[in-house]
Protein backbone atom coordinates (compact mmCIF):
# COMPACT_ATOMS: atom_id res chain seq x y z
CA UNK A 1 0.00 0.00 0.00
CA UNK A 2 1.08 3.55 -0.65
CA UNK A 3 0.79 5.57 2.53
CA UNK A 4 -2.11 7.92 3.21
CA UNK A 5 -3.57 9.92 6.05
CA UNK A 6 -6.76 8.83 7.75
CA UNK A 7 -9.32 11.23 9.19
CA UNK A 8 -12.27 10.15 11.28
CA UNK A 9 -15.16 12.60 11.14
CA UNK A 10 -18.09 12.20 13.55
CA UNK A 11 -20.80 13.63 11.27
CA UNK A 12 -21.78 13.48 7.60
CA UNK A 13 -21.16 17.23 7.28
CA UNK A 14 -17.58 16.88 8.55
CA UNK A 15 -17.02 13.93 6.21
CA UNK A 16 -18.14 15.95 3.20
CA UNK A 17 -15.78 18.77 4.14
CA UNK A 18 -12.91 16.30 4.54
CA UNK A 19 -13.73 14.73 1.17
CA UNK A 20 -13.19 18.15 -0.43
CA UNK A 21 -9.41 17.67 -0.04
CA UNK A 22 -7.30 16.62 -3.01
CA UNK A 23 -7.27 12.84 -3.66
CA UNK A 24 -9.54 12.12 -0.69
CA UNK A 25 -11.63 8.94 -0.71
CA UNK A 26 -14.22 7.50 1.68
CA UNK A 27 -13.33 4.37 3.68
CA UNK A 28 -16.23 2.38 5.06
CA UNK A 29 -15.75 -1.29 6.01
CA UNK A 30 -12.60 -1.53 3.89
CA UNK A 31 -13.47 -5.04 2.72
CA UNK A 32 -13.11 -3.95 -0.88
CA UNK A 33 -10.99 -0.83 -0.54
CA UNK A 34 -8.18 -2.27 1.61
CA UNK A 35 -7.50 -5.18 -0.80
CA UNK A 36 -7.62 -2.61 -3.64
CA UNK A 37 -5.07 -0.41 -1.88
CA UNK A 38 -2.84 -3.40 -1.18
CA UNK A 39 -2.86 -4.16 -4.90
CA UNK A 40 -1.90 -0.51 -5.48
CA UNK A 41 -4.93 -0.03 -7.69
CA UNK A 42 -5.79 3.22 -5.92
CA UNK A 43 -3.61 5.98 -4.51
CA UNK A 44 -5.66 8.27 -2.27
CA UNK A 45 -3.78 10.79 -0.16
CA UNK A 46 -6.49 10.92 2.51
CA UNK A 47 -8.99 8.27 3.56
CA UNK A 48 -12.09 9.68 5.19
CA UNK A 49 -13.29 6.96 7.54
CA UNK A 50 -17.06 6.76 7.79
CA UNK A 51 -17.00 4.26 10.65
CA UNK A 52 -17.30 6.88 13.40
CA UNK A 53 -20.46 8.47 11.97
CA UNK A 54 -23.28 7.41 14.27
CA UNK A 55 -26.05 8.95 12.11
CA UNK A 56 -25.12 6.59 9.24
CA UNK A 57 -25.64 3.40 11.22
CA UNK A 58 -28.65 1.23 11.98
CA UNK A 59 -31.85 -0.25 10.59
CA UNK A 60 -35.23 1.38 11.26
CA UNK A 61 -38.75 1.44 9.90
CA UNK A 62 -39.60 4.81 8.33
CA UNK A 63 -43.00 6.50 8.78
CA UNK A 64 -43.87 5.68 5.16
CA UNK A 65 -43.43 1.92 5.76
CA UNK A 66 -40.02 1.75 4.09
CA UNK A 67 -37.07 0.05 5.73
CA UNK A 68 -34.26 2.57 6.18
CA UNK A 69 -30.74 1.17 6.38
CA UNK A 70 -27.94 3.59 7.27
CA UNK A 71 -25.13 3.64 4.71
CA UNK A 72 -22.58 2.65 7.35
CA UNK A 73 -24.54 -0.37 8.58
CA UNK A 74 -22.56 -3.61 8.40
CA UNK A 75 -23.98 -6.69 6.67
CA UNK A 76 -24.20 -8.67 9.95
CA UNK A 77 -26.47 -6.03 11.50
CA UNK A 78 -28.75 -5.98 8.45
CA UNK A 79 -28.91 -9.80 8.56
CA UNK A 80 -30.11 -9.60 12.17
CA UNK A 81 -32.19 -6.43 12.33
CA UNK A 82 -33.95 -6.54 8.95
CA UNK A 83 -35.18 -10.10 9.57
CA UNK A 84 -38.44 -9.08 11.25
CA UNK A 85 -39.28 -6.46 8.58
CA UNK A 86 -37.80 -7.68 5.33
CA UNK A 87 -36.58 -11.29 5.54
CA UNK A 88 -35.62 -11.42 1.83
CA UNK A 89 -33.12 -8.61 2.41
CA UNK A 90 -31.85 -10.07 5.70
CA UNK A 91 -31.28 -13.41 3.98
CA UNK A 92 -29.18 -11.76 1.29
CA UNK A 93 -27.05 -9.90 3.85
CA UNK A 94 -26.52 -13.12 5.83
CA UNK A 95 -24.84 -14.80 2.86
CA UNK A 96 -22.47 -12.05 1.72
CA UNK A 97 -18.88 -13.30 1.88
CA UNK A 98 -18.13 -14.81 5.29
CA UNK A 99 -18.79 -13.82 8.93
CA UNK A 100 -15.70 -11.60 9.28
CA UNK A 101 -16.51 -9.76 6.03
CA UNK A 102 -20.09 -9.27 7.24
CA UNK A 103 -18.85 -7.76 10.51
CA UNK A 104 -17.01 -4.96 8.65
CA UNK A 105 -18.48 -4.54 5.15
CA UNK A 106 -21.30 -2.01 4.77
CA UNK A 107 -24.26 -1.48 2.48
CA UNK A 108 -23.05 2.01 1.52
CA UNK A 109 -19.66 0.64 0.43
CA UNK A 110 -21.28 -2.14 -1.51
CA UNK A 111 -23.71 -0.01 -3.52
CA UNK A 112 -21.15 2.76 -4.08
CA UNK A 113 -18.65 0.23 -5.39
CA UNK A 114 -21.24 -1.46 -7.67
CA UNK A 115 -19.12 -4.52 -8.31
CA UNK A 116 -20.82 -6.39 -11.20
CA UNK A 117 -21.01 -9.46 -8.95
CA UNK A 118 -22.03 -7.82 -5.68
CA UNK A 119 -25.15 -8.91 -3.79
CA UNK A 120 -26.68 -5.65 -2.49
CA UNK A 121 -27.14 -3.99 -5.89
CA UNK A 122 -29.56 -6.82 -6.75
CA UNK A 123 -31.66 -6.13 -3.64
CA UNK A 124 -31.57 -2.37 -4.14
CA UNK A 125 -32.62 -2.58 -7.79
CA UNK A 126 -34.95 -5.54 -7.22
CA UNK A 127 -36.79 -3.71 -4.44
CA UNK A 128 -36.96 -0.39 -6.30
CA UNK A 129 -35.16 1.18 -3.35
CA UNK A 130 -34.00 4.78 -3.02
CA UNK A 131 -30.33 5.57 -2.48
CA UNK A 132 -30.02 8.58 -0.18
CA UNK A 133 -26.83 10.64 -0.27
CA UNK A 134 -25.64 13.70 1.59
CA UNK A 135 -27.06 15.76 -1.29
CA UNK A 136 -30.10 14.01 -2.81
CA UNK A 137 -32.27 10.93 -3.24
CA UNK A 138 -31.60 8.69 -6.25
CA UNK A 139 -34.00 5.99 -7.46
CA UNK A 140 -32.31 2.59 -7.86
CA UNK A 141 -33.25 2.56 -11.55
CA UNK A 142 -31.10 5.69 -12.04
CA UNK A 143 -28.31 4.84 -9.59
CA UNK A 144 -26.48 1.87 -11.14
CA UNK A 145 -24.75 2.97 -14.34
CA UNK A 146 -22.73 -0.10 -15.32
CA UNK A 147 -19.77 -2.04 -14.00
CA UNK A 148 -18.27 -0.14 -11.01
CA UNK A 149 -20.15 3.00 -12.15
CA UNK A 150 -22.91 4.83 -10.27
CA UNK A 151 -24.71 8.18 -10.34
CA UNK A 152 -22.63 9.37 -7.36
CA UNK A 153 -20.65 12.55 -7.89
CA UNK A 154 -17.12 13.08 -6.65
CA UNK A 155 -17.17 13.51 -2.86
CA UNK A 156 -20.82 12.40 -2.55
CA UNK A 157 -21.56 9.63 -0.06
CA UNK A 158 -24.37 7.12 0.41
CA UNK A 159 -25.89 7.89 3.80
CA UNK A 160 -28.94 5.60 3.67
CA UNK A 161 -30.82 3.15 1.49
CA UNK A 162 -34.64 3.08 1.75
CA UNK A 163 -36.37 -0.14 0.80
CA UNK A 164 -40.06 -0.43 0.00
CA UNK A 165 -41.12 -3.78 1.48
CA UNK A 166 -42.56 -6.28 -0.99
CA UNK A 167 -45.19 -8.93 -0.16
CA UNK A 168 -42.38 -11.44 -0.51
CA UNK A 169 -38.87 -11.61 -1.90
CA UNK A 170 -36.08 -14.11 -2.30
CA UNK A 171 -32.42 -13.95 -3.32
CA UNK A 172 -30.97 -16.99 -4.99
CA UNK A 173 -27.17 -17.01 -5.16
CA UNK A 174 -25.05 -19.43 -7.18
CA UNK A 175 -21.82 -19.01 -5.32
CA UNK A 176 -18.37 -18.76 -6.87
CA UNK A 177 -16.68 -20.51 -3.98
CA UNK A 178 -13.18 -19.04 -4.39
CA UNK A 179 -14.33 -15.42 -4.11
CA UNK A 180 -17.56 -16.15 -2.20
CA UNK A 181 -19.26 -13.60 -4.47
CA UNK A 182 -22.10 -14.83 -6.67
CA UNK A 183 -21.22 -16.31 -10.04
CA UNK A 184 -24.79 -15.34 -10.84
CA UNK A 185 -27.56 -14.35 -8.41
CA UNK A 186 -31.14 -13.23 -8.83
CA UNK A 187 -33.38 -11.18 -6.53
CA UNK A 188 -37.12 -11.58 -7.09
CA UNK A 189 -39.54 -9.26 -5.27
CA UNK A 190 -43.33 -9.55 -5.54
CA UNK A 191 -45.21 -6.33 -4.83
CA UNK A 192 -49.00 -5.86 -4.93
CA UNK A 193 -48.65 -4.00 -8.23
CA UNK A 194 -46.04 -6.17 -9.96
CA UNK A 195 -42.86 -8.19 -9.78
CA UNK A 196 -39.26 -7.00 -10.04
CA UNK A 197 -36.39 -9.29 -11.03
CA UNK A 198 -32.79 -8.06 -10.64
CA UNK A 199 -29.77 -10.01 -11.81
CA UNK A 200 -26.18 -9.66 -10.60
CA UNK A 201 -22.95 -11.39 -11.59
CA UNK A 202 -24.05 -11.92 -15.17
CA UNK A 203 -23.95 -8.84 -17.37
CA UNK A 204 -20.98 -6.82 -18.64
CA UNK A 205 -23.17 -3.83 -17.71
CA UNK A 206 -23.46 -4.83 -14.04
CA UNK A 207 -26.74 -5.37 -12.21
CA UNK A 208 -29.85 -5.25 -14.44
CA UNK A 209 -33.59 -5.92 -14.43
CA UNK A 210 -34.84 -8.85 -16.48
CA UNK A 211 -37.99 -7.23 -17.82
CA UNK A 212 -39.24 -10.25 -19.78
CA UNK A 213 -39.30 -12.30 -16.58
CA UNK A 214 -40.90 -9.42 -14.69
CA UNK A 215 -43.74 -9.21 -17.21
CA UNK A 216 -44.33 -12.95 -17.17
CA UNK A 217 -44.31 -13.12 -13.37
CA UNK A 218 -46.51 -10.05 -12.97
CA UNK A 219 -49.10 -11.98 -15.03
CA UNK A 220 -48.86 -15.31 -13.19
CA UNK A 221 -46.53 -15.70 -10.27
CA UNK A 222 -45.26 -19.24 -10.61
CA UNK A 223 -42.28 -21.13 -11.97
CA UNK A 224 -44.15 -22.25 -15.11
CA UNK A 225 -44.61 -18.61 -16.14
CA UNK A 226 -40.84 -18.52 -16.77
CA UNK A 227 -40.70 -21.53 -19.06
CA UNK A 228 -39.09 -20.80 -22.41
CA UNK A 229 -37.66 -17.43 -21.26
CA UNK A 230 -33.95 -16.95 -21.77
CA UNK A 231 -31.32 -14.25 -22.19
CA UNK A 232 -28.61 -14.11 -24.86
CA UNK A 233 -25.16 -15.19 -23.64
CA UNK A 234 -23.20 -12.74 -25.79
CA UNK A 235 -23.70 -9.72 -23.49
CA UNK A 236 -22.77 -11.74 -20.40
CA UNK A 237 -19.49 -11.79 -18.52
CA UNK A 238 -17.30 -14.59 -19.82
CA UNK A 239 -14.28 -15.61 -17.75
CA UNK A 240 -12.50 -18.67 -16.43
CA UNK A 241 -15.31 -19.23 -13.91
CA UNK A 242 -18.06 -19.46 -16.52
CA UNK A 243 -18.80 -18.63 -20.13
CA UNK A 244 -21.41 -16.07 -21.16
CA UNK A 245 -23.75 -18.87 -22.24
CA UNK A 246 -23.37 -20.62 -18.90
CA UNK A 247 -24.15 -17.40 -17.03
CA UNK A 248 -27.20 -16.76 -19.21
CA UNK A 249 -28.38 -20.29 -18.43
CA UNK A 250 -27.81 -19.73 -14.70
CA UNK A 251 -29.90 -16.54 -14.75
CA UNK A 252 -32.95 -18.55 -15.86
CA UNK A 253 -32.26 -21.33 -13.36
CA UNK A 254 -31.69 -18.94 -10.42
CA UNK A 255 -34.85 -16.99 -11.30
CA UNK A 256 -36.88 -20.19 -11.29
CA UNK A 257 -35.39 -21.25 -7.97
CA UNK A 258 -36.10 -17.84 -6.43
CA UNK A 259 -39.73 -17.98 -7.57
CA UNK A 260 -39.94 -21.61 -6.46
CA UNK A 261 -38.88 -20.55 -2.97
CA UNK A 262 -41.76 -18.05 -2.84
CA UNK A 263 -44.75 -20.05 -4.09
Amino acid at each position, binding site marked *: *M*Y*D*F*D*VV*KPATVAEAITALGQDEAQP*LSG*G*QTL*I*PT*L*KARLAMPSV*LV*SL*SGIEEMRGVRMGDDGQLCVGGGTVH*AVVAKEAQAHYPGLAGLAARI*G*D*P*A*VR*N*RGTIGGSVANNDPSACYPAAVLGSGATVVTNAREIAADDFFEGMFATALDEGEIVTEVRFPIPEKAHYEKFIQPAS*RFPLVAVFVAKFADGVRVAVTGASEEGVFRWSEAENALSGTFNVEALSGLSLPGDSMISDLHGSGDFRAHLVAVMTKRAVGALV
Partner: protein
Amino acid sequence: MTEVKMTVNGKPASGAVEGRTLLASFLRDNLSLTGTHIGCDTSQCGACVVHVNGEAVKACTMLAVEAEGADVKTIESMANPDGSLTVIQQAFQDHHGLQCGFCTPGMIMSASSLLKDNPKPTEAEVRHYLDGNICRCTGYHNIVKAIMAASGQDVSALAAE
Protein backbone atom coordinates in the same frame (compact mmCIF):
# COMPACT_ATOMS: atom_id res chain seq x y z
CA MET B 1 2.64 8.72 12.26
CA THR B 2 -0.40 8.64 14.51
CA GLU B 3 -0.59 7.37 18.06
CA VAL B 4 -3.24 4.64 18.52
CA LYS B 5 -4.57 3.32 21.79
CA MET B 6 -6.67 0.24 22.30
CA THR B 7 -7.19 -2.59 24.75
CA VAL B 8 -5.55 -5.80 23.60
CA ASN B 9 -6.27 -9.00 25.51
CA GLY B 10 -7.47 -6.98 28.47
CA LYS B 11 -4.42 -4.72 28.71
CA PRO B 12 -3.92 -1.18 27.41
CA ALA B 13 -1.80 -1.08 24.25
CA SER B 14 -0.56 1.84 22.21
CA GLY B 15 1.93 2.68 19.54
CA ALA B 16 2.79 4.96 16.64
CA VAL B 17 1.44 3.78 13.30
CA GLU B 18 1.14 4.99 9.72
CA GLY B 19 -2.27 5.47 8.14
CA ARG B 20 -1.73 2.30 6.12
CA THR B 21 -0.62 0.12 9.07
CA LEU B 22 -2.91 -2.89 9.29
CA LEU B 23 -4.27 -4.10 12.61
CA ALA B 24 -2.54 -7.43 11.91
CA SER B 25 0.84 -5.67 11.53
CA PHE B 26 0.26 -3.59 14.65
CA LEU B 27 -0.46 -6.73 16.69
CA ARG B 28 2.45 -8.68 15.27
CA ASP B 29 5.15 -6.03 14.83
CA ASN B 30 4.39 -3.44 17.53
CA LEU B 31 3.01 -5.76 20.20
CA SER B 32 4.89 -8.96 19.25
CA LEU B 33 1.62 -10.92 19.34
CA THR B 34 2.55 -13.22 16.50
CA GLY B 35 -0.25 -15.72 17.08
CA THR B 36 -2.36 -13.71 14.63
CA HIS B 37 -1.15 -15.14 11.33
CA ILE B 38 -1.04 -13.50 7.93
CA GLY B 39 -1.76 -16.17 5.36
CA CYS B 40 -3.05 -14.62 2.17
CA ASP B 41 -2.98 -10.90 2.95
CA THR B 42 -5.85 -10.61 0.42
CA SER B 43 -8.81 -11.04 2.81
CA GLN B 44 -9.54 -14.61 1.76
CA CYS B 45 -8.05 -17.07 4.26
CA GLY B 46 -9.05 -16.02 7.79
CA ALA B 47 -5.70 -16.90 9.41
CA CYS B 48 -5.71 -13.35 10.80
CA VAL B 49 -9.13 -13.41 12.48
CA VAL B 50 -9.26 -11.56 15.81
CA HIS B 51 -12.17 -10.17 17.82
CA VAL B 52 -12.79 -6.43 17.77
CA ASN B 53 -15.41 -5.35 20.30
CA GLY B 54 -16.54 -8.96 20.42
CA GLU B 55 -16.92 -9.48 16.65
CA ALA B 56 -14.69 -11.63 14.44
CA VAL B 57 -12.84 -9.53 11.86
CA LYS B 58 -9.91 -10.06 9.53
CA ALA B 59 -7.02 -8.14 11.06
CA CYS B 60 -5.35 -7.96 7.63
CA THR B 61 -8.34 -6.01 6.31
CA MET B 62 -8.68 -3.38 9.00
CA LEU B 63 -6.46 -0.38 9.58
CA ALA B 64 -4.87 -0.11 13.01
CA VAL B 65 -6.23 3.44 13.34
CA GLU B 66 -9.75 2.04 12.85
CA ALA B 67 -9.28 0.04 16.05
CA GLU B 68 -8.66 3.20 18.10
CA GLY B 69 -10.35 2.73 21.49
CA ALA B 70 -11.50 -0.80 20.65
CA ASP B 71 -11.38 -3.94 22.74
CA VAL B 72 -9.26 -6.41 20.74
CA LYS B 73 -8.80 -10.09 21.55
CA THR B 74 -6.27 -12.34 19.85
CA ILE B 75 -5.48 -16.04 20.06
CA GLU B 76 -3.01 -15.22 22.86
CA SER B 77 -5.99 -14.47 25.12
CA MET B 78 -7.69 -17.79 24.47
CA ALA B 79 -6.02 -20.12 26.97
CA ASN B 80 -7.09 -20.11 30.62
CA PRO B 81 -5.10 -17.85 32.98
CA ASP B 82 -3.15 -20.88 34.28
CA GLY B 83 -2.06 -21.70 30.73
CA SER B 84 -4.32 -24.72 30.31
CA LEU B 85 -6.31 -24.98 27.09
CA THR B 86 -9.92 -23.83 26.85
CA VAL B 87 -12.64 -26.22 25.70
CA ILE B 88 -12.37 -25.24 22.02
CA GLN B 89 -8.57 -25.47 21.97
CA GLN B 90 -8.62 -28.81 23.78
CA ALA B 91 -11.21 -30.13 21.31
CA PHE B 92 -8.92 -29.22 18.38
CA GLN B 93 -6.15 -31.23 20.04
CA ASP B 94 -8.39 -34.17 20.96
CA HIS B 95 -9.96 -34.45 17.50
CA HIS B 96 -6.84 -33.72 15.46
CA GLY B 97 -8.32 -30.45 14.18
CA LEU B 98 -4.93 -29.20 13.01
CA GLN B 99 -1.91 -30.42 11.13
CA CYS B 100 0.59 -27.65 10.39
CA GLY B 101 -1.38 -25.29 12.63
CA PHE B 102 -1.07 -22.21 10.44
CA CYS B 103 -4.82 -21.69 10.09
CA THR B 104 -5.54 -22.67 13.70
CA PRO B 105 -5.50 -19.26 15.42
CA GLY B 106 -8.09 -17.97 12.94
CA MET B 107 -10.10 -21.18 13.18
CA ILE B 108 -10.23 -20.96 16.98
CA MET B 109 -11.20 -17.26 16.94
CA SER B 110 -13.95 -17.94 14.38
CA ALA B 111 -15.15 -21.01 16.25
CA SER B 112 -15.41 -19.09 19.49
CA SER B 113 -17.52 -16.38 17.79
CA LEU B 114 -19.77 -19.03 16.32
CA LEU B 115 -20.33 -20.76 19.65
CA LYS B 116 -21.02 -17.45 21.38
CA ASP B 117 -23.91 -16.75 18.95
CA ASN B 118 -24.99 -20.33 18.38
CA PRO B 119 -24.00 -22.65 21.25
CA LYS B 120 -25.25 -25.85 19.55
CA PRO B 121 -24.62 -25.45 15.80
CA THR B 122 -25.44 -28.15 13.28
CA GLU B 123 -22.65 -29.53 11.12
CA ALA B 124 -23.98 -27.46 8.18
CA GLU B 125 -23.97 -24.30 10.31
CA VAL B 126 -20.35 -24.92 11.36
CA ARG B 127 -19.29 -25.42 7.73
CA HIS B 128 -21.17 -22.30 6.61
CA TYR B 129 -19.61 -20.24 9.41
CA LEU B 130 -16.11 -21.36 8.41
CA ASP B 131 -16.58 -20.10 4.83
CA GLY B 132 -13.89 -17.49 5.41
CA ASN B 133 -11.32 -19.76 7.11
CA ILE B 134 -9.18 -21.76 4.74
CA CYS B 135 -7.12 -24.77 5.80
CA ARG B 136 -4.63 -26.31 3.39
CA CYS B 137 -4.00 -29.43 5.47
CA THR B 138 -6.88 -31.06 7.26
CA GLY B 139 -9.71 -31.26 4.74
CA TYR B 140 -11.88 -29.61 7.44
CA HIS B 141 -13.57 -32.77 8.75
CA ASN B 142 -11.71 -32.79 12.02
CA ILE B 143 -12.02 -29.04 12.46
CA VAL B 144 -15.79 -29.33 12.12
CA LYS B 145 -15.74 -32.31 14.45
CA ALA B 146 -13.69 -30.44 17.06
CA ILE B 147 -16.07 -27.48 17.02
CA MET B 148 -19.10 -29.77 17.31
CA ALA B 149 -17.42 -31.55 20.22
CA ALA B 150 -16.53 -28.24 21.88
CA SER B 151 -20.23 -27.36 21.77
CA GLY B 152 -20.90 -30.45 23.87
CA GLN B 153 -22.45 -32.52 21.09
CA ASP B 154 -21.82 -36.19 20.45
CA VAL B 155 -19.48 -36.47 17.47
CA SER B 156 -18.98 -40.23 17.41
CA ALA B 157 -21.13 -40.53 14.26
CA LEU B 158 -19.23 -37.85 12.31
CA ALA B 159 -16.73 -38.81 9.61
CA ALA B 160 -13.72 -40.78 10.79
CA GLU B 161 -10.49 -39.03 11.82
